[in-house]
């Protein structure tokens, strides 16, 4: 029995099983905090703690799932292409806004976290907080952060941005559909896009494009900004 529970077969079946159930309950209830990634993680962490399986052993057994993450990041190139070809509108305005937004997002989170005394690994984990999880965890791992922390922060940032986003946009007097969609997608990725779709189809489509642009720009800007900051230290 012990060997069976520690086997790769069991751990893979358990992981995918928990994920399928988590996905199903999220779709049934539509409660944002029941995000399938959060519930899956809680259940799996509790499970391996109870069965006394060390994280290293779990990671080893589920390596194949982790490998698929790389492939899904590559697959995002296809998504970006589909969104770009169906996109019309002021491209210069969109790219400029995303570029500045990305830099402001990275620099502000670094400065605030450092000022509050955060460990360098924590700072590295927060740098890609505004972008879609697959790119964010990849960027985080690359700059020496804790991918698990990034995954959680990204989801919570998405929920936070989607909840306060429409309120902030109203306060600022933002009427433009392009600006609203772009802001929600770039600050709160897919969760923000779901919210943008409630505002309208145009906002939703632009928000989807914003996720891709923000992801690509941030992936390139994080190492650049890190290099510049190291230079000035």
């Amino acid at each position, binding site marked *: 029995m012990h060997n069976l529970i520690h086997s790769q077969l069991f751990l893979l079946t358990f992981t995918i099983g928990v994920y399928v159930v988590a996905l199903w309950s999220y779709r049934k209830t539509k409660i944002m905090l029941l995000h399938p990634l959060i519930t899956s993680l809680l259940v799996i962490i509790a499970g391996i703690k109870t069965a006394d399986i060390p994280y290293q052993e779990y990671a080893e057994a589920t390596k194949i*799932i982790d490998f698929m993450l790389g492939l899904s990041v590559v*697959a995002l190139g296809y998504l970006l292409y589909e969104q770009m070809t169906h996109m019309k509108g002021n491209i210069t305005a969109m790219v400029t806004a995303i570029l500045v937004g990305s830099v*402001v997002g990275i620099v502000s989170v670094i400065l605030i976290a450092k000022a509050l005394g955060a*460990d360098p690994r924590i700072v590295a984990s927060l740098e890609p907080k505004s972008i879609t999880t697959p790119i964010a*965890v990849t960027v985080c791992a690359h700059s020496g952060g804790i991918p*698990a*922390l990034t995954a959680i922060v990204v989801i919570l940032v998405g929920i936070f*941005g989607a909840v306060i986003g429409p309120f902030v946009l109203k306060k600022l007097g933002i009427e433009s559909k*392009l600006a609203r969609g772009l802001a929600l997608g770039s600050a709160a990725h897919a969760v923000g896009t779901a919210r943008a779709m409630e505002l309208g189809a145009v906002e939703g489509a632009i928000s989807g494009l914003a996720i891709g642009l923000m992801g690509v720009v941030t992936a390139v800007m994080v190492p650049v900004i890190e290099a510049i900051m190291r230079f000035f230290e």
Partner: protein
Amino acid sequence: MAGIFILLFYYFLGTLVAYLIGNFIPGSIMGMLLLFLSLVFKIIKPEQVRKSATFFLDNMMLFFIPLGVGLVASYALIGKFLTAITIASAVSTVLVLVVVALIAQKMEGKKDA
């Protein structure tokens, strides 16, 4: 299967290019950019990767789980800096919202005028 091959091939190509430029950015992200460019310049057709890419995109959340379970390993460190994490993320998120919305609205307006 051809679609899976293309994704694997671009992952490999991306990793190779990333290595050649000193691993400045991660290989999978380089692979994503190369796949995007290959589609734009019609080196490969979207139909060739559509099915495989959709599979990976639809099930993406599953692929973070092994990384996410790593939370157990860095629990103490995260707990220690919880306030910094929360404040930095929240303030920075609002800044991104404000900056992107203001710039986009201003520039879009200019073009229309």
